[in-house]
């Protein structure tokens, strides 16, 4: 019995991998289609192959070994004469060439290619429609060195013919074949696969991080062509599904509220406090300094009760580094000029200290953690990235602080870890 592979998905029409049986394993279809094709010694083929006659969206993945000088067709869907084809992936002059209907769409040089030692590669080519055009995304990964290379193109849609052949290793009867013994696996799919999915499937699977925010699941878009919700069907599933979809769709519009990279480097030091004192103030009751240019007034979606903040900073000094602390504040009731005074409050997340000196293009992310938000009557929150320098240190005047990026993204943290409790 053929085992289903982890890389066999709902959209996979053919999947094969070399196992202990050698190259003829490439003829065994371990996708859910389970329709084996023919091993012919120097190539593997299916003739004709209507299932592989896919224009777009589409995904083709091939893993293979290569060294300098290797060449030939890895995968081809076309006529026996090789004059017409839906798609063709080949190695030529040290590059992976992705072709459709006789036209080169994308060429990507094989990274880390060397002479005298074959290295393993993952080649991933996927397409999707943009209007009437088609977008090709190609990723090539050298397994041995971990180096990626990419190529992209927007081009015309290809055409196909269900009577054409599928060939692994050349076209037709293995003409212009890449050494089939050097091909390790092939997948053909009828859905767009992102580059990330290609990496997750063929290279490394990520580990899900720990998340405290309410996570929403991807919602399956059902339409009435499926006969769900139409006259004569059950009403209940349609309502249940629509209600569940609303629950999982409710925060789709939530985006980051501060997402900044300053257009240049601006440094703050104790000299700045003296030269332009109007830019700085101590936060009430705190040693932390609020800076004018690190102050933002932004709307926060009403369903969110917290933000997650992080900043990228560069510290540099010509003497010994000193401690520099950072916090992200939200400041409800800030006393704006020409407005009635309100009760002031302040919330901040994590306190992070750095004690280092970065080179010109370096810096460090400081994770400022989760901060409570209390939007004002405009639905907005005043945010501040505040800092503190160790004023008592003799080297304090040499320390310079620059903000390279600021990221603040709202989210909803439920009080009930399991339930879908209401928005605040």
């Amino acid at each position, binding site marked *: 019995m053929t085992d289903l592979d982890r890389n066999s998905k709902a959209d996979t029409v053919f999947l094969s991998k070399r196992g202990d049986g050698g190259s003829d394993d490439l003829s065994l279809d371990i996708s859910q289609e389970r329709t084996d094709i023919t091993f012919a010694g120097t190539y593997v083929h299916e003739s004709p192959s209507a299932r592989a006659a896919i224009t777009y969206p589409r995904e083709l993945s091939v893993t293979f070994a290569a060294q300098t000088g290797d060449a030939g067709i890895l995968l081809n869907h076309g006529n026996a004469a090789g004059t017409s084809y839906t798609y063709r992936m080949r190695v030529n002059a040290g590059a992976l060439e992705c072709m459709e209907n006789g036209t080169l769409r994308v060429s990507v040089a094989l990274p880390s290619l060397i002479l005298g030692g074959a290295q393993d590669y993952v080649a991933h080519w996927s397409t999707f429609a943009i209007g009437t055009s088609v977008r090709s995304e190609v990723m090539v990964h050298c397994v041995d060195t971990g180096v990626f290379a990419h190529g992209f193109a927007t081009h015309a849609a290809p055409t196909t013919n269900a009577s054409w052949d599928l060939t692994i290793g050349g076209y037709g009867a293995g003409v212009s074949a890449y050494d089939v013994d050097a091909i390790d696996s092939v997948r053909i799919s009828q859905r767009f696969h992102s580059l990330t999915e290609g990496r997750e499937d063929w290279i490394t699977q990520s580990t899900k991080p720990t998340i405290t925010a309410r996570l929403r699941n991807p919602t399956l878009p059902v339409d009435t062509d499926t006969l769900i919700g139409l006259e004569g069907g059950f009403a*209940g599933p349609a309502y249940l599904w629509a209600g569940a979809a609303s629950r999982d769709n409710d925060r789709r519009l939530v985006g980051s509220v501060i997402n900044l990279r300053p257009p240049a480097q601006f440094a703050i030091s104790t000299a700045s406090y003296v030269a332009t004192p*109007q830019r700085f103030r101590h936060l009430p009751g705190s040693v932390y300094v609020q800076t004018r240019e690190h102050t933002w007034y932004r709307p926060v979606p009403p369903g969110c009760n917290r933000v997650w903040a992080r900043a990228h900073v560069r510290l540099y000094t010509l003497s010994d580094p000193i401690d520099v602390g950072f916090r992200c504040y939200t400041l409800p009731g800030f006393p704006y000029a020409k407005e009635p005074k309100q009760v002031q409050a302040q919330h901040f997340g994590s306190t992070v200290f750095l004690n280092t000196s970065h080179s010109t293009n370096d810096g460090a992310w400081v994770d400022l953690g989760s901060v409570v938000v209390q939007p004002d009557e405009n639905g907005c929150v005043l945010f501040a990235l505040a800092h503190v320098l160790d004023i008592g240190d003799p080297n304090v005047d040499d320390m310079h602080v620059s903000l390279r990026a600021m990221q603040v993204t709202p989210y909803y943290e439920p009080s009930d870890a399991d339930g879908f409790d209401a928005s605040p």
Partner: protein
Amino acid sequence: MPNYKKRVLADALPTNPPLAPLTGGQPARADRVASVFAEQDRVLGHGRRIVAAGGLQGADAFQVGDDFPESGVTQVHPLAGVNRIVDRKRITLTPGHYLRAVAICVPSGMTQKLDGSIYVAAGAGGTIKFQAEYDNGSDVETVTSYIEVAPSINEYGAESEYAGASFAELTRHVVDIFPPLAPVSELAKWSEGCTVDLTIAYIGGVRCVDLAVFETPVAFASTLTAAPWPTSLYVNGAGQAPDNYPAKYPVSATNKGGDPGSGTDYAIEVARRQCLELGPFLLTASAWNEATESVASTETTAITTNSTSFIDLWRPGVTAWSENAAGWTISAGGNAPGHNTSGPLELRDCDRVVTCKVSVYAKRESNAAGTATVRAQVSGYSMTDIAIASNAWGWYETEGALQCGFGAEDPTSLLLLGKTTDTGTTLHIRYAQIQYSAPPES
């Protein structure tokens, strides 16, 4: 005169009604069905997508300084009445949402005018101008709104220089940039299918600390024949959810009388549209440098490169993506996972990608056939390229699926890298944006 339905969206927020009463074996109750439709009408209430942001952007000084304004042949303050464009955006608008701007500013500085060939003072004061061209595919409406910022009372319109002055004198401002929303036929015209070309400009001595233009939910209206809608329009005459479900037995595919605001068919279609079409605005960026931009500028000075290998456009010394490099976040993409790109089979619940449109306002200057490329890269393997093949300023864009993780707590760092095919070709970029787009059909 067509019949319209209208839903007021302001303050409508999801309440997550229980689903258990809708599961099998339960009595078919109209009130439980009504809660589904009412809930669909509240999904749009979350929209506060920030589509443009500006102000100091981290700069340590304002463009408008404190100089003596009778400056001879040298211009030292902006010319009165002249627009200085600081940002442009092209937005695919969320249904029922319209643009609003907020800003915090300190008192405005001096302006100048020409007296013959001599620059002289023209008074202190400043305005932020927001021009939005709403386009629904057949109608175009240009809306212009302003934020006026009071002048500095100091000599030459100078900043106050006492400690903390910028905070003591900080004022906040709000302005709507709405197209005509009344009568209801006008509201229906702009309720969905709109793009907006937004231009933000400073006029006079504006000293803006921070500004944001964002979508705000107002109301959605449509004719009965235009369904399925992106919201269920389960409403009474006041644009709110009615007290009772309109059919005695909540089992019809379409409600009696032809009103598509209820019935199983439309519940499905509305949910379909909401899970495909709604998503965050992931990134907005402008190259405007408040500290170094000339007072004579009429638009943002572009970031340029003629490097033939990729460099970080916002920090040219960085030549490759790294998770340790400063970048923008697109983690909010985790709020809008696609069923066929981030589903449990596709990414095994180990990661997420967001389908999006990446756009840059750019050009390439070349006397030959050289081209330029902008790459949006968020990891060692997740990226997309945009070819800049014209000498004319314009929007260049593509669509892709970028790795975004699971949301706010799952950090991302996206760089915009640029290169050209030869050193005789120069890439120019002024503005960039990334907004959600529906996943490719499969």
